[in-house]
Each structure stands twice: as structure tokens, then as C-alpha cells.
């Protein structure tokens, strides 16, 4: 099997043309970028505004959790059956699946901004939209990025499944390979999409560290037991990151 896999990878035909590996990787990244971008444009502002006004917060959390139970395959198939083949129906399904983590991240980030900092901003005369954009959103960046990472990985995985309803991308190798029982092709496609996911995750992680504002960027020191070094100022400014620290959720 390993020999046949190597054969599959080293076949020159695999590396050119519209069904070649580079073309499929680009297609896959293209679908992912398109769906995540559309979802972010919808979900981030809505999540941030709800986080600021605190109105409808419970609904956001409920909807986000409820949508997690949606079977990706079923949603894809349903959208294609109702709207027809082509790029749009599967993309809409991917957008729908990317919205909950983005919405939850933006909401939790903004709602979790330090109330002291928000009060202080209000006290020095900042208007509501300034408070949202200059105080709450910056402190929400880590959680927003967490949502973005989760949404992106979810979309990469679901775009693979979308090959079943006619989308291109790396899932083609798995779906087409299965239909003719070409196992090296299936395995090759699975390997590429796994590596792609891990690379994208690493890139987003590094990106996240680079753009995280304020003290979180400095808080790289770790105590021997693996917990972050205490930094009250950072804790106060980034209490938005509470969900990753269960001890604070508990209280």
C-alpha cells in the first residue's frame, strides 16, 4: 500500500492540470477563504454588537450550541437539493457552519471585556461606538481569533465532505477514490488535507500571537507547573479569555 501511495504521489500527472494536487489545494483554500470571509463579515459585527449591548446574549450562546449539532453532511446535501449544483449552495452551507464559532467568539470576547476599563472609557467621555471599537474589540481579539481558527478548521473539514455534492478541492480524491476503490488515491487525498489543516492551524496560531494586543503578548513566561505567570494587569485586561481558564468560570 505504501509503495502504491508513493507511486500515486510521484506520478507527474498528479502535479499538473485542473485535477492535479496544486490545483486541488488552491481550490480547497479558495472555498475555505470565501466561506470564512463571508461568515466573518456577518458574524463578527453581530457578535460584537450583541456583546456590547448584552441584549440577546443567551440566544447567541443557544444558537451557537444548537448549530453545533447540525450534521455537516446533511446540511450540504440539503442545500444542494434545494438550491441546485454549483459553487453557491455548498458555499452557503459552509458559511452557515462557520458562523456559530465566529459569533460566539466575538460575543464572548466583547461581553468579557473588563467592565472597569469600559466604565473608565465611558467616564472620560468616549461614545458607545468608540468604547466598542477602541476598548472592547481590542480586548476581544484573542477570543475572536479563537473563533476564527475553529471556524476555518471546521470549513476545511466540511469542504472535504462537500466533494460528495460536486464541489472540487481535496475531498475529490477521497470521494472519487472510494467510488472506484482506488485506495492509494483516497489515502493520498486524506494525507494532503490533513497536512493542509495542520499547516493552516499553525499559521493562524502564529498570526494570533502576532496580532494579540496588550499584555497577553508579553505573557509568555510559564511557571514550572505549566500555568501562566501571574500578571494581574494582563488578567484584568484580558478577562475575555476566561473560557480558557476554567478556574475563573467556576466562580
Amino acid at each position, binding site marked *: *500500500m505504501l509503495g502504491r501511495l508513493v507511486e500515486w504521489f510521484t506520478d507527474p500527472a498528479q502535479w499538473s492540470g485542473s485535477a492535479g494536487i496544486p490545483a486541488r489545494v488552491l481550490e480547497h483554500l479558495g472555498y475555505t477563504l470565501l466561506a470564512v470571509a463571508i461568515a466573518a463579515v456577518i458574524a463578527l459585527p453581530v457578535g460584537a454588537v450583541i456583546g456590547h449591548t448584552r441584549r440577546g446574549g443567551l440566544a447567541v450562546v443557544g444558537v451557537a*450550541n444548537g448549530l453545533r*449539532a447540525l*450534521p*455537516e*453532511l446533511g446540511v450540504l446535501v440539503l442545500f444542494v*437539493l434545494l438550491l441546485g449544483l454549483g459553487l453557491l449552495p455548498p458555499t452557503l452551507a459552509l458559511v452557515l457552519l462557520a458562523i456559530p464559532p465566529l459569533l460566539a467568539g466575538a460575543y464572548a470576547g466583547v461581553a468579557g471585556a473588563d467592565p472597569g476599563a469600559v466604565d473608565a472609557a465611558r467616564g472620560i467621555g468616549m461614545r458607545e461606538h468608540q468604547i466598542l471599537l477602541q476598548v472592547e474589540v481590542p480586548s476581544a481579539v484573542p477570543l475572536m481569533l479563537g473563533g476564527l481558527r475553529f471556524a476555518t478548521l471546521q470549513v476545511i473539514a466540511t469542504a472535504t465532505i462537500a466533494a460528495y455534492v460536486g464541489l472540487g478541492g481535496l475531498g475529490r480524491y477521497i470521494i472519487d477514490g*472510494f467510488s472506484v476503490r482506488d485506495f492509494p488515491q483516497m489515502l493520498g487525498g486524506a494525507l494532503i*488535507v490533513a497536512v493542509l489543516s495542520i499547516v493552516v492551524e499553525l499559521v493562524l496560531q502564529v498570526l494570533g500571537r502576532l496580532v494579540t494586543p496588550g499584555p497577553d503578548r508579553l505573557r509568555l513566561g510559564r511557571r514550572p507547573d505549566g500555568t501562566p505567570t501571574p500578571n494581574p494587569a494582563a488578567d484584568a485586561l484580558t478577562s475575555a479569555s476566561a473560557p480558557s481558564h476554567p478556574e475563573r468560570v*467556576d466562580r
Partner: protein
Amino acid sequence: MRAFGYDIDQLVIAHVLLAIIPVILGMIIALPLGWWAHRSRGARRVLVPLSGALYTIPSLALIVFIPVVLGTPILSPVNVGLTLTIYTVALLVRSVAEALDAVPASVSLAALAVGYRPAGLLLGVQLPLAVPVLTAGLRVASVSSFSLVTVGALVGIESLGTLMTDGFQQDYTAMVVTGIVGSIALAFIFDALWLGLGRALTPWSRARAGV
């Protein structure tokens, strides 16, 4: 019950078993691993990034890897079961470690002072206090397991996902919707079950909420 020419009961049973056994198995594996990551910095350095990487791999890819690595038949439900077990472990190792980290040191020290031994401390004090965080992790793992089980239908593994793939082939929307609604309903039923179990295991949290 039969519908669309399928034995729905059989699909539901396959769906539930294939979703729930990996979640329970994953929890059992994640508990000692998470405890290890909680105790040892070196173990955490390996286990947490490794779980992160495993969780990153798309389900369809993992389902394809397993037969190659283990030599199971490509059409075996074991491939889907193991994939979901890996996801559950990957998700819960960190949950368990963080849940144990979150037990206040003063509580652990007090338990030691009144004579708890290390095993008793873990089982009698630290784990019970970690139950709310563990339940939260378990619920996430369970809900996504019930939805991911359907992906197996793409490689011929029966579940309610079969109604989605076959419904697609037959251009039969009602069949697909039945699969979706059934899958969501099962996910919610088990979610409620875990929630209830978590509450039953932590009577003190109810007492506090009642005040």
C-alpha cells in the same frame, strides 16, 4: 419502523452506538491522560499539542487513515468508531487537565491535612470538583460525535447519514431532512442525559443554586 425503504430503527441504533461508544471510551482514555498532563509538565508539553493536532485532522481523512494503519476493512464501522474516539480523547485530555488544575490548591492541601492519601485525594476530592468542567467537555464531544457519525455514510458505514447520502442520490429531500432531524434529536437527547448526569454527580452545585 420503516420509511423510504429503510429500517429506521436499525439506522438509529447504529447511529447511537457508533456515536456513544467512542464518547464513553474516549472519556475513559482521557481521564488518566489528562491526570498525567495535570501532574507532569513534560507530559502536558507532548499531550496537549498532540491532541490539538489530532483534533485538527478532518474526519473524512481520519476515517480513511485508520484502515491503512490498523488493517481494518475499509467498510468496517470500527474506522468511524476509532475516529470519533480519537476526537473525544483529543478534546477531553485538555479539559481533564484544566479541570484538575482548576481545583484550588487550598482545597487539595486541606484534604491532605485531614488525612486523604493521593489516590483518595484524586478520586474523592479533585475529580468530583472537576465534574462541571468535565461535563462541559463531554457534552461538546458528544454533540459533535452525533453529527460526525453521519460522515461515515460517505464510505458506506450505516447511520442516519445513510438517509442523507441515499436521499441525495435519489433526489429525495424528505429523506435527507429525516436524517438531519433524527441526528439532531439524538444529539440533544444525549446532551440532556450528560447534563442530568453532571447535576446528579454534583448535588452541592444544586444546593448553592437554590440559595
